[in-house]
Structures are given as structure tokens and as C-alpha cells.
């Protein structure tokens, strides 16, 4: 087994193991950290695919920026440990409705995976050529994929505006009703 194969299985095992532990954890802070570990392993896989730019962006954007915000929220909300045995009330996500919905989503995902894996052999190269070059990625982003790129940025803008609108509800009457919060 070459060093590339060893690295692939190592990174793959870390990514899957860490992702499984994310949902198996009771402590949300540990979940966030394990998700970062999983992203790190994914980034290693990108390096193996000769896409160092994508690997570094994965770390900067996902493991760096987005997960810091996740950690922030978890820390600020001071989310308690999920001790379901000792909890009198059933956790909202464990009620029958959400569980059925979750099972449905899992089935859809499994189906998609089965379909994607069944398409084996069709491993056509990326149309823009080698993805290792930042120049090529930039060019295809701003020419062939200009529309999806811009639409995505508008989507993120919408999310930002939505967050501001939701967070900035400083109506004084509203505040009095909810007891000072």
C-alpha cells in the first residue's frame, strides 16, 4: 500500500469517526470540536486530490470561521449536557414527529448515496482542467459559474439581512412584555 493510500484511509477513518462522534457526544462543545477535526481530515483528503487551494479554503472558511461562530453560540447559550435518562420531559427532537422526519431524511440520503455510488466509472475530470491552480478556479468561478456564484452570494446576503432583522428587535413595548430581555 502506497503512502497515498495509507493517508487516504487514515484521513477517511478520522473524518468518519469524528463525524460519528459528533452526534454521539452529549456535550455540545465537544461535538463542535469533533466537527472541526472532521473538517481537518476532509481538508487532508483534498490535499491528496491535488487541490491544495480547496483544502486551505476548507480550513479557513469551515474549520476556522464558521465553526468559531458555532462554538460562540454553544458557549453563549451555555447549552446543558443532553442527559436524556435524567430528563423528565422528552427532548423536542426525540418526539415521534421529528424522529419520523429524521428517518425519512436518512432514507433519502442513503438512496442518494446508493445512486451516486452506482454511477461508478463515470469519474470524468473536472471540466475546467486541473483544480490545483488558483488561477483556473478563479477563472471558471467568474466565467462558467458566474451565475451560481452570484446567486450564492445573494443567498448569503439574504441570510445576513434575516439575521439582523431577527436579532435587532428593539421595540421598547416588546421588551417590556418579555420582562426586560
Amino acid at each position: 500500500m502506497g503512502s497515498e493510500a495509507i493517508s487516504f484511509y487514515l484521513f477517511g477513518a478520522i473524518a468518519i469517526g469524528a463525524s460519528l462522534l459528533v452526534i454521539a457526544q452529549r456535550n455540545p462543545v465537544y461535538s463542535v470540536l469533533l466537527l472541526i477535526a472532521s473538517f481537518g481530515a476532509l481538508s487532508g483528503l483534498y490535499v491528496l486530490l491535488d487541490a491544495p487551494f480547496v483544502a486551505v479554503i476548507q480550513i479557513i472558511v469551515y474549520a476556522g470561521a464558521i465553526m468559531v461562530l458555532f462554538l460562540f453560540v454553544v458557549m453563549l447559550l451555555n447549552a446543558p449536557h443532553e442527559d436524556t435518562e435524567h430528563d423528565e420531559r422528552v427532548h423536542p427532537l426525540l418526539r415521534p414527529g421529528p424522529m419520523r422526519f429524521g428517518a425519512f431524511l436518512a432514507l433519502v440520503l442513503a438512496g442518494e448515496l446508493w445512486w451516486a455510488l452506482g454511477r461508478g466509472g463515470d469519474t470524468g475530470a473536472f471540466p475546467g482542467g486541473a483544480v490545483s491552480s488558483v488561477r483556473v478556479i478563479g477563472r471558471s468561478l467568474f466565467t462558467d459559474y458566474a451565475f451560481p456564484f452570484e446567486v450564492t452570494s445573494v443567498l448569503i446576503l439574504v441570510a445576513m439581512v434575516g439575521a439582523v432583522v431577527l436579532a435587532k428587535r428593539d421595540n421598547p413595548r416588546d421588551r417590556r412584555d418579555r420582562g426586560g430581555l
Partner: protein
Amino acid sequence: MTALLIAQILLTLFVFIALLHSAAAMVWVERRVAALLQQRRGPTRVGWQGLLQPFADVIKLMFKEELRPRAADPLLFALAPIISATAAFSAFAVVPFGASTTFFGLLDQPLKLQVSDVNVAVLVIFAIASMGVYGIVLAGWSSNSKYSLLGGLRSSAQMISYELSYGLALASVLLIGNTLSLTDLVNGQSGVWFGFIPRWFLFLQPFGFLIFMTAGIAETNRAPFDFPEAEQELVAGYHTEYSSMSFAMFFLAEYINMVTVSAVATDLYLGGWHGPWLPESLGWIWFLLKVAALLFFYVWMRWTLPRYRYDQLMAFGWKVLLPASVINLLVTAAGVLYFGL
């Protein structure tokens, strides 16, 4: 081949040890310069001119008791300083500090004075810096103390805010240099204009340099932006509950981060190892001198300027520095497009 490999390993070890000692040297410089600016003498007793003071401090720290609050999260409390120190060390791995050299014919092939030449070096530094935030945030959270938590939160908010301006200032340099490799960026700055002005990017990007250094000071949590450890408000911020060697690791990380920011600024704006009079193979002397000048500037700033207020820091970052860096980027892009700088 094997000689080159051995040389590469030795170089890596050398960088590691040099970074450790640069932190020690910086502690001494900081205390002596602080004393100078405050008209006192500073540490002078241990060794010549107090030069061995940092080593005495380290020995003292090693023999101190390692304390951990009972309510702290044991695993994360131990992990946080390790993350900080590891991130600080590894960021320097992609920073070149001299031209390729054969060590006076000792090696067959020239060796790059850089631990690893990655073609996206600039982004790697970014990625590792963004990992360093976790050390501070987790230290703040796992200590289970209000001062630590506030320090950690402030620090992460500050680092995320200033990372934007930092990145945009960097992007302007990348536009001019037309590459993401630090070595190529440095080599793009060799030579002189009109026979006497060095072709440093500093002269093409004066505002970019100012933005970069300001954001760099905020990124490394140094005064006047040292909110994560604002003594009057937060005791010692995120490392309030730390003692002994785990405290030392945070301390080490802070100084090494300063060295890294200065080294990157030297490579990006001050022409790296290029300079007059010395042959190319001794260029690292220029590099060291430039980094030392920037580090002195860091210390000078700390003991001259008072700390901002927290809301002022955020307002400055988002309302002044970020727009300024966006404008700088636009003007640079227009310049590159229309005048082909």
C-alpha cells in the same frame, strides 16, 4: 539526496529552536524597552544586562504548581494551551527567511531557507492563524470563570473582525505580486527603482502596510488592542486560571505569533531578504534586521499607546479599517488592470 534531506530536517529543527529563543529574546527586549521608555532600568541582574532573565523565568515557571479549577473541563483545559502553541509554531513553517543556499558548497543542490514551500503559502498562514483562535476560546470556556470566558469571547470576536482587514490587505499584495507563494512574492521585490529606492511592495502599498500592521497587532492581541487580557477589567483574560507551564505556552504563543506576523510583513512588504551590500547568500541577515525592526515597533507601540475601549476597537475594525482595506483593494486592482504595475 540524503544530504539534502538531512539538511532539511536540521533546518526544521533550527527553525523550531530559533522560534523558542526568539520568544525568550522578545521577553527580554520587551522588559528592557519598557524600562527604557519609563525611565527605569529593567532586569539587569541575571546574566550580562539581564539577558538570562527569560531563562530564569522559564525555570521558575517549570517549578510552579500546575493548578486547575475544580469546575474546569479537564480535557479542554489541558488542550487549549497546546492548540495555541502548536498553531503559533506551525504558522512559521511556510515563511521563507532567506534565498536558496548550498551552505558554501556543502550541499550539491541549493536548499530553500524555508521549512516547506507550499504554493498557497499565504493562505496556509491564514488557515493556521484561524486555528489559533480555538486555543484562546477553549481556554476561556473550559476555565469556567467569568473573566476567562469574557476574555475568550472578546478575543475571538476581535480576531474574526480583524482577520477580514488583514486578509484584504494581503490580497492587494497578492494582486501586485501575481502569485500566492511567499518565495515568489519576495523575489518580485528584488532590485531598485531610479537607482536608489528598493522595489519593496511597501512603496506600492503604503496604506496596505498600515492596515496589515494594525490588523496584525489586533490579531496577536497586543496593546493597544490587548482586550483578551485587559488587566483592569478581566484580571488576565483567557489565561486567568492558568499557571506554570500551561501559562507559559500561552505566553510563548503570543510572542511567536508576533515574530510570525513581523516575518510575514517583512516578506510581503519589506522585500524579505533583499538588501544592498550583502551577497544573496547572506540575505538572511537583512531579513533578521527587518524583523527585529518591526518587533521593536511592536514593543514601542505597547508602551506608548493606551488601550482602546472595547466598543472603540470594534467600531474601528468594522467602520474604519475594513472600508479602508476594501478601497485599498479596489484601487490596487484598478492599478494592476489599467497600468499593469
